[in-house]
Every structure is written in structure tokens, then in C-alpha cells.
């Protein structure tokens, strides 16, 4: 048979103000199994606790209900007291007639009735309590500190100085938190760096503290004494064991501004149909496109008589060779022209032999005749005048080549007749 004790606390005025503690105690006494029911001004005080322990001892109580404040507040206190007199701590429970009753119900009658109900309910439950023994669990003697601002650093150092290992996890690449941003701190106007950085160095040098910088807590398992914390160490892309912090990398980093990823225009954006067909046909003939750039450009020039911008842009997109490389090659070699050329290409040889035999005179004469400078094309698009360094017919100097056919031993006088072969009419015959 259970021998219950009910002890009602006044809590000064906090409970007594709305609950008639004596009435409640009287009622508790009438409950089956209850052998003693008393109220007292401060049950949690030392004399109050003595009342409970004496009752346990004198009446061999098997269970106790203390009706006072929230169990979250003083359950440990009363349970400890009960154990001192041999009653198992879990045979004692608390009915919350303060926060759940007197403090929230001002109607004295209702509050008192509710107190009685709460006690009655709890007594019935406690009658069926059984003594329970504490469970022992192992404790991992390490501490984790999450966040390495001044608070985290200080906590880690304190724990480490007590000789226990610390796992310090900091989300940012460096510890120090916002304090490292400050210049001076109030009220002493101490330089923030001077009082913080030594602590940061202590963290680094302490063999007890394992620092996980640039890392975040991913998952926490387990419970008090046996936490298993999974940490995600974000990639620095720098191997910390090898890096000496010499600074060569950040002093020579190439990305000085934000990167704007280039927008890839569509293959045929702004390219005429005709150009695409012709360039595609040329590309078919080449297996190693990147290596045969000059061959491809020569074929394009044979096709269009010059290198149109459209063709180079399309070639660049199709073959994935950068346009700048194609343009660079086109501007480097004399054979290529980026501007439309005339139907007939006149090339005056200025090799050494031709130079000695009056090559420059011939060039000037032709330029004078056609009214254009070297490298230009006549308005009617018929003739383009170019200078070339040696066509390999030096024995027959001076030499002029037009559309592949070479004219040897050219003199100023012969120029009009040579040009005439290509449809050149002199506007006015000079007298």
C-alpha cells in the first residue's frame, strides 16, 4: 500500500494570494493513500524541506507530492532532500500550483479547486511511481566552440587553459570576428588589434585547440557528454600544410576586377548565308584546323579575293579558334588583305635586283598612272597596287606580276600597254 505525503507551499503570497492552501492541504489529506498533508509558507526553504524529510522518516512515506512552483525550478532541490532520507528521488514529484494556477487564476475559489485537482491527479500518478536509479554515461572530455569572435576565442582559451581539448569552428577564413574590424574600443580607447591579436595567436599556438577555420557545423548527433558533430570544411583551394603565407599568390593574382563571363553569340548571328557555305566548304578539307590556320585563310582569300570580317568571325566561332588569333595572323602576313581588293592585283617586285634596276620608279609610275598609293584599290575596283619583296625572277628585273602572270624587264614606258591587257583605258592620252 502506498503511503503518500502531500506538502502545499504558500510561496510567501505568490500561491496563498489566490489559493486557500490550508483548504487544499485539508482536501489532500482526504485522498486515498495520503497519510500526511501539510502546508507551509516556504516549502523550498530549509525548514520547509525539513518538514518533508521528517515526514518521510517518521511516516515511512513511499511517495511525496510537493505542490508549489514549477518542477523545472525546484524539482532537483526536493528530490535531493528526499534522497538524504532514503526515499528514491523519482518517488517525489511537484504539482505546479503557482505558474499554472495562482499566478494565472485570480478567482480564489476556482484557483483553490484547480489546485486540488492538480494535486489529486499527481497523487494518483505518483502512487504508481517506481524507484529509478541514475544512468551513468561516459563523457568525451573535449569541448566544441562554434564561432571564433572574441567570445569564442575567450571560451576556447579558458577551456584549453584548464587542460581540456577544444575544437574551435569558425565559418569565416579567419578568427577574430567583428572585433578585428574595430580600430579602438570603448571606454579605454585601447587599440582593438593590440588586445585581440595576441589572443588570436594564443589560439593558434595552443596545442589543445584544434581550429577548423572556413568551416561550418553540418550536423550534430548524440547528447550531453557524447556529441558527435559533423563539420563541413569548405575548400580553401590552398593546402594549409604547405603554404608558408609568403604572399606571392595574392600579390600576383591576375583577377583585379570582377569577371564578366563572355556571352557566346549564336553561330550564324550576323553572318550571311553565302559566307557560311563557302567557309564550311573550306573547313571540310582540313583535319587539324587549329594547326592549318594560314592554309584556311589563304583558301578564304582565294575565295573572296580578301578576308571579309564576316568570314573570320564565322571561322572563329565554327572552329573555336579565337578571333584575335585569326586577326593577328591576317595582319601579320603580307599576303593577306582585310580590305576588298580589285579584280586585278598588280604586284611590283622590290627585291634587291629589281630595286637596282629601277623597281621604285616603276612602282611610282604605276601609282601615278592609276592615281592610287601602294596598298590601295582604284575606285572602279579594277586594280589593286601592292609592293612585294622578291617574286624570284631577279634575272629579268625589274618585274611586275599581275594576277599570277609575271611581266619581265618592265620599263616606265611599257606600263600603259601592260595595264591595257587587263582592261585599263587611259582616260586621256597624254600628248
Amino acid at each position, binding site marked *: 500500500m502506498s503511503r503518500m505525503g502531500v506538502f502545499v507551499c504558500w510561496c510567501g503570497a505568490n500561491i496563498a494570494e489566490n489559493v486557500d492552501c490550508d483548504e487544499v492541504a485539508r482536501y489532500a489529506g482526504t485522498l486515498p493513500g495520503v497519510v500526511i498533508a501539510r502546508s507551509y509558507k516556504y516549502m523550498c526553504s530549509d525548514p520547509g524541506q525539513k518538514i518533508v524529510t521528517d515526514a518521510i522518516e517518521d511516516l515511512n512515506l513511499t511517495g511525496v507530492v510537493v505542490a508549489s512552483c514549477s518542477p523545472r525550478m525546484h524539482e532537483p532541490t526536493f528530490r535531493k532532500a528526499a534522497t538524504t532520507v532514503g526515499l528514491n528521488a523519482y518517488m517525489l514529484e511537484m504539482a*505546479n500550483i503557482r505558474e499554472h494556477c495562482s499566478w494565472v487564476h*485570480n478567482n480564489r475559489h476556482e484557483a483553490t479547486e484547480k489546485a486540488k485537482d492538480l494535486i489529486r491527479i499527481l497523487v494518483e500518478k505518483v502512487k504508481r511511481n517506481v524507484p529509478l536509479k541514475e544512468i551513468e554515461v561516459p563523457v568525451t572530455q573535449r569541448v566544441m566552440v562554434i564561432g571564433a569572435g572574441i567570445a569564442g576565442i575567450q571560451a576556447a582559451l579558458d577551456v584549453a587553459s584548464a587542460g581540456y581539448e577544444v575544437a574551435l569552428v569558425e565559418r569565416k577564413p579567419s578568427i577574430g570576428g567583428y572585433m578585428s574590424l574595430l580600430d579602438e574600443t570603448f571606454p579605454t580607447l585601447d587599440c582593438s588589434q593590440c588586445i585581440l591579436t595576441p589572443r588570436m595567436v594564443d589560439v593558434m599556438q595552443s596545442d589543445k585547440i584544434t581550429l577548423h577555420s572556413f568551416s561550418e557545423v553540418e550536423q550534430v548527433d548524440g547528447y550531453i557528454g557524447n556529441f558527435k558533430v559533423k563539420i563541413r570544411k569548405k575548400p580553401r583551394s590552398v593546402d594549409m600544410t604547405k603554404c608558408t603565407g609568403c604572399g606571392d599568390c595574392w600579390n600576383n593574382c591576375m583577377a583585379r576586377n570582377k569577371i564578366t563571363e563572355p556571352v557566346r553569340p549564336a553561330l550564324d548571328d550576323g553572318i550571311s548565308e553565302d559566307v557560311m557555305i563557302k567557309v564550311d566548304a573550306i573547313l571540310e578539307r582540313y583535319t587539324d584546323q587549329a594547326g592549318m590556320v594560314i592554309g584556311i585563310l589563304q583558301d578564304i582569300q582565294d575565295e573572296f579575293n580578301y578576308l571579309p570580317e564576316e568570314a573570320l568571325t564565322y571561322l572563329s566561332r565554327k572552329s573555336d579558334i579565337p578571333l584575335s588569333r585569326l586577326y593577328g595572323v591576317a595582319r601579320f602576313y603580307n599576303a593577306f588583305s582585310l580590305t576588298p581588293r580589285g579584280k586585278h592585283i598588280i604586284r611590283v617586285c622590290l627585291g634587291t635586283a629589281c630595286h637596282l634596276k629601277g623597281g621604285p620608279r616603276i612602282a611610282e609610275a604605276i601609282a601615278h598612272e592609276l592615281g592610287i598609293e601602294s596598298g590601295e584599290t582604284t575606285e572602279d575596283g579594277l586594280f589593286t597596287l601592292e609592293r612585294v619583296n622578291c617574286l624570284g625572277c631577279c634575272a629579268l628585273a625589274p618585274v611586275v606580276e599581275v594576277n599570277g602572270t609575271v611581266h619581265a624587264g618592265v620599263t616606265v614606258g611599257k606600263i600603259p600597254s601592260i595595264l591595257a591587257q587587263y582592261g585599263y583605258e587611259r582616260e586621256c592620252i597624254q600628248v
Partner: protein
Amino acid sequence: MIQKAKNETTDPSEWQPRIVAFLCNWCSYAGADLAGMSRLAYPAAIKIVRVPCSGRVDPMFVIKSFEQGADLVLVSGCHPGDCHYTSGNYHARRKLLAFRELMTFFGIDPRRFKISWVSAAEGAKWSNLVKEITDEVKALGPFETYSEILTGETGP
């Protein structure tokens, strides 16, 4: 600056509803404590039973409460995601909401069974919650069905 809660006078003769509330120890019970500390008065009809987690509440407790004369049963736990035991409140939510659907078969009006999430910091929410459900149960009137069956006759 704790103002005293205003002194409500209730007429003892009027029918007083009986509400049973199963509160999870870590959140709702602490929320009720906070309501007390902040002196946020609410009707006394409610009787709080502490359970380790809302997941511990067995549907049988609810039926037994109605059988024992409860006019409304409330189960309150931590906000989903905040449960001290990680997933206790998820099991409670699924199990008890499914159970509420069956209550009509037991002859209990589902509106007499409430589930709520009150965190340890929401004293005010707890107090208002109790006021609401008390008014609601007054509107619903006493729960007679089970007591009639037990006593074999249909009383007023």
C-alpha cells in the same frame, strides 16, 4: 511592473467545462510557466498533465480523458523542427491528426480535440490559446455522450 490580473468573478452555478491538456515538458510546459511568470491570466478550466514529448501522447489517453469527463482535450508540443527530441512532434502531428479524423466514429466531435505548437518563449500565445479553447468548448457545451453510455441513461 507585474500588474495584477483583473479579478474575474465567475458564477459558480454556471456549467464549468473541463479541459485536459497534455503539454510537452521542453516547450509548451515552459511556455505555460512563462505565461505564469508574466501573470497572463486565463480561465482555470484547463488541467495540465506533463509528458516528456508530444510524441509520447497515445490516442488512448485522449479517449480515456473524454471517458473521464473531459469536454475538450488539448495536446501541445514544440514547433515542428524545434523538438528537443528532434522528431517527437512530427510523430505526434501525424498520429493525432489521423486519429482526429476517426473521432467522429467514436461519437466525439473532432472540434473537441485540439493540437497546438507553443514554444518556451510564447507565454502570451499559450494564454490566448487557453482563452480561445475555453470559449469554444463553452459554445460546444458539455460532452455528454460517454457519461450517458456509462450511466445507461440519457440525461439532459
